[in-house]
């Protein structure tokens, strides 16, 4: 090799390297140079979507989580000298109307005019619906002259009329009046606990024992009616009538005994009252047993606040609704939603999987199967209310009515299965979600490697053995994904349910201690419908608003939990198919 050539090579190679290492050449920051000018758009769309979803979740979570936190009570003295008391809920700017401005003193008028006609106002939850005819009141800032938080103000959650805000004046125990303004008075607390215990006992007697007696009485009545309706020989009819004649007085006597016991407790409760005074001076006397919770809003340690917070959550999760659903708990709705979703999965899984198995494994692939597939996909796009109408018409009025005629003639004309109920709602939703399961299952089946099937067939397995032992287990994670999607869609659906069995209030759970323990024909409550009902159908949308958030939070949490459960199961299944070898 001669010198110039060597010099050339030596010079050439580093020069090339240097050019390649030039930052703009190796890492083009101009996306257009990469041939991907629109990447930022895709990323931006994703970011926007995430922000919106997170924003919604945060809004729901924050509002839901803070609803039950005890808030202080403010006593506000207005410029006209009157006073109001309530929990400040929120503040906002508003534009006072011309009449209001006209009545204002000139100084304030000038200030509002300087602010461009805008003033601030605060919403107070004043409670005392029985006295004021409203639970909330807006107070413009220019009407406030003073605000304080006296320690003796209490917020009382009661069985009727929403909350009471005011002071305690005294209480009566066994008809004897004691005057005290102290919520921590030990005698008051003892009387209160006793009254609540009696109240719980009354509820137990009425719900449990009287309920049982009523159930048996109704069963006897239906048994007699059944015999009388059918064409049984006269001897049997007489025997049935004799039996009823013997049973009915026994049960009625039991009922009366229990009712009397409850009545005694009620009478005792009537003698224990609490006397309250609202900020304007009017007095209200409440039975102590009707006080659900007494919150000393302005005089609480942090531990006490946490106690109130947790006890409110517990009530919310474990109790029935009160006060047109705006107070109390939502246990029946939680239970109804979970039960319906579970039933939906139980119904949709075999149906969807069997259909997909036939379509993918057995049916001859051709024009007909293609048509069926298109139809199934189209079913997924039908508005859900249409399914509701179908469910009501077909399941309840045709299938259910036939079941009633055949098996429950003694209850007619009141329907058993011939009306909306848990079972029909689940089946309607199963119908609604079956396309999702079919499509997912078909894909999962198609993704099972051919070598697996051939291996099994080569061992002398029949087609069905191959499907059962090899294909289905292998496709299970995919099928589970379909079921999870179906579940998520079904649990959040409300519109069709309104037609096929969801009601505003159904304190009776669909399970109880009477045969057959699970009552699929009963109507039920649902979190989604509950949100609609509380938020938009109750007497006071402001009172329902916190409940809307909490219920939404709960519905999301429930769906989340069910999905997590299903995903965990799926991942367990998936792990079985992962080898260490690649």
């Amino acid at each position: 090799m001669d010198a110039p050539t060597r010099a050339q090579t030596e010079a050439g190679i580093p020069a090339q390297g240097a050019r390649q290492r030039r930052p703009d050449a190796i890492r083009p920051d101009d996306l257009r140079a990469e041939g991907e000018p629109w990447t930022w758009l895709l990323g931006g769309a994703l970011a926007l979507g995430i922000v919106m979803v997170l924003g919604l979740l945060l809004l729901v979570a924050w509002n839901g989580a803070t609803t039950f936190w005890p808030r202080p009570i403010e006593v506000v003295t207005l410029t006209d000298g009157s006073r109001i008391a309530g929990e400040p809920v929120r503040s906002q700017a508003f534009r006072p109307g011309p009449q209001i401005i006209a009545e204002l003193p000139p100084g304030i008028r000038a200030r509002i005019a300087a602010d461009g006609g805008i003033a601030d106002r605060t919403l107070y939850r004043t409670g005392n619906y029985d006295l004021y005819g409203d639970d909330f009141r807006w107070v413009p800032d220019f009407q406030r002259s003073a605000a304080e938080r006296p320690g003796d103000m209490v917020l009382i959650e009661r069985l009727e009329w929403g909350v009471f805000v005011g002071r305690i004046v005294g209480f009566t125990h066994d008809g004897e009046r004691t005057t005290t303004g102290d919520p921590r008075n030990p005698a008051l607390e003892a009387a209160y606990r006793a009254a609540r215990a009696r109240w719980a006992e009354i509820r137990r007697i009425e719900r449990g024992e009287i309920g049982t007696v009523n159930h048996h009485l109704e069963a006897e009545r239906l048994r007699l009616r059944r015999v009388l309706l059918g064409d049984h020989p006269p001897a049997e009819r007489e025997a049935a009538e004799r039996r009823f004649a013997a049973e009915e007085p026994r049960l009625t006597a039991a009922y009366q005994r229990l009712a009397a016991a409850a009545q005694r407790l009620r009478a005792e409760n009537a003698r224990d009252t609490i006397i309250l005074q609202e900020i304007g001076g009017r007095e209200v006397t409440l039975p102590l047993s009707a006080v659900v919770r007494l919150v000393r809003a302005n005089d609480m340690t942090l531990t006490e606040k946490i106690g109130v917070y947790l006890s409110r959550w517990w009530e919310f999760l474990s109790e029935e609704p009160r006060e047109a659903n705006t107070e109390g708990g939502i246990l029946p709705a939680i239970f109804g939603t979970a039960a319906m979703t579970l039933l939906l999965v139980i119904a949709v899984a075999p149906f969807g999987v069997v259909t997909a198995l036939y379509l993918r494994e057995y049916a001859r692939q051709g024009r007909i199967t293609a048509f069926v597939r298109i139809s199934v996909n189209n079913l997924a796009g039908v508005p859900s209310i249409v399914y509701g109408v179908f469910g009501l018409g077909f399941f309840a009025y045709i299938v259910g009515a036939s079941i009633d005629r055949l098996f429950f003639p003694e209850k007619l004309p009141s329907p058993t299965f011939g009306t909306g109920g848990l079972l029909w709602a689940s089946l309607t939703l199963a119908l609604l979600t079956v396309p999702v399961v079919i499509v997912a299952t078909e894909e999962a089946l198609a993704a099972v490697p051919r070598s697996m099937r051939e291996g099994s067939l080569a061992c002398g397995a029949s087609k069905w053995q191959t499907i059962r032992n090899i294909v289905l287990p292998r496709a299970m994670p995919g099928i589970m994904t379909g079921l999870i999607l179906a579940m998520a869609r079904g649990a959040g659906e409300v519109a069709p349910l309104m037609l096929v069995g969801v009601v505003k209030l159904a304190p009776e759970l669909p399970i109880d201690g009477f045969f057959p323990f699970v009552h699929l024909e009963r109507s039920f409550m649902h979190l989604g419908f509950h949100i609609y009902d509380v938020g938009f159908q109750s007497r006071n949308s402001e009172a329902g608003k916190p409940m809307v958030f909490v219920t939404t939070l709960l519905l999301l949490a429930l769906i989340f939990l069910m999905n997590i459960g299903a995903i965990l199961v799926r991942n367990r299944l998936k792990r079985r198919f992962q080898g260490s070898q690649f």
Partner: protein
Amino acid sequence: MSATTIIERPAEGATVYHPKTSEAAPAVSVRGFSLWYGAKQALFDNTIDIQSGMVTALIGPSGCGKSTLLRSLNRMNDLIDGIRMTGSISLMGDDIYAPAADVIALRKRMGMVFQKPNPFPMSIFENVAYPLRVDGVRDRRIVQETVERSLRGAALWEEAKDRLNESALGLSGGQQQRLCIARAIAGDPEVLLMDEPCSALDPIATAKIEELIDNLRGQYTIIIVTHSMSQAGRVSDNTAFMYLGRIIEYGETSTVFTQPRVQRTQEYVTGRFG
């Protein structure tokens, strides 16, 4: 005609059969067998007798129809849409394409090992027991004995005996392939079909499988598709060379390899094309 003469142009469609020295009876007889994938013909009028208890290698360039022929023997091709066949194939005298033939019983008489190991996502034990399970064998003792015998037969027992209940997917590639062989012989078949069983394996695993095939010789009739001339030379008694859907030349391996009578065969076995 001397054995060393190269026939440049055999008669169209004719197969050259070398004289056999072994007396073994045919286990599988293929007679005038043709096969079409839809409109495309993949096998052309093939006739061959696979001798019982011997190892027969199918060699030929890619796409010449070796797999197709092999899969026709246990009717694996039935799964493919639009397939059409003429001619006949019989196993020990039973026509396997007879309308009344029981495909499942047929497949139980023929074990198959695939190109890529395809263990099922189950335990090692259940993989080998699978042919018995689909047969409905419930007796635990029989199942256990069979699994052990098959794993020993596939030279996997020593490696697997302590982890029988672990997932088969945790085995190495070569172990998986031996597991598939164990599974194929667990059903006690008469014929073992192997489609390039070593193509996914390293030389050591390949040597193990070849040793295994050598051990199985005599117990089973083995038909093995292979791309490796040396492998065919090492393990097989007979060799059939295929080209464009036809069996060109068939005879004892040593004869086909050293004294082929068709030019194409010679070119292929000497590595000049293929």
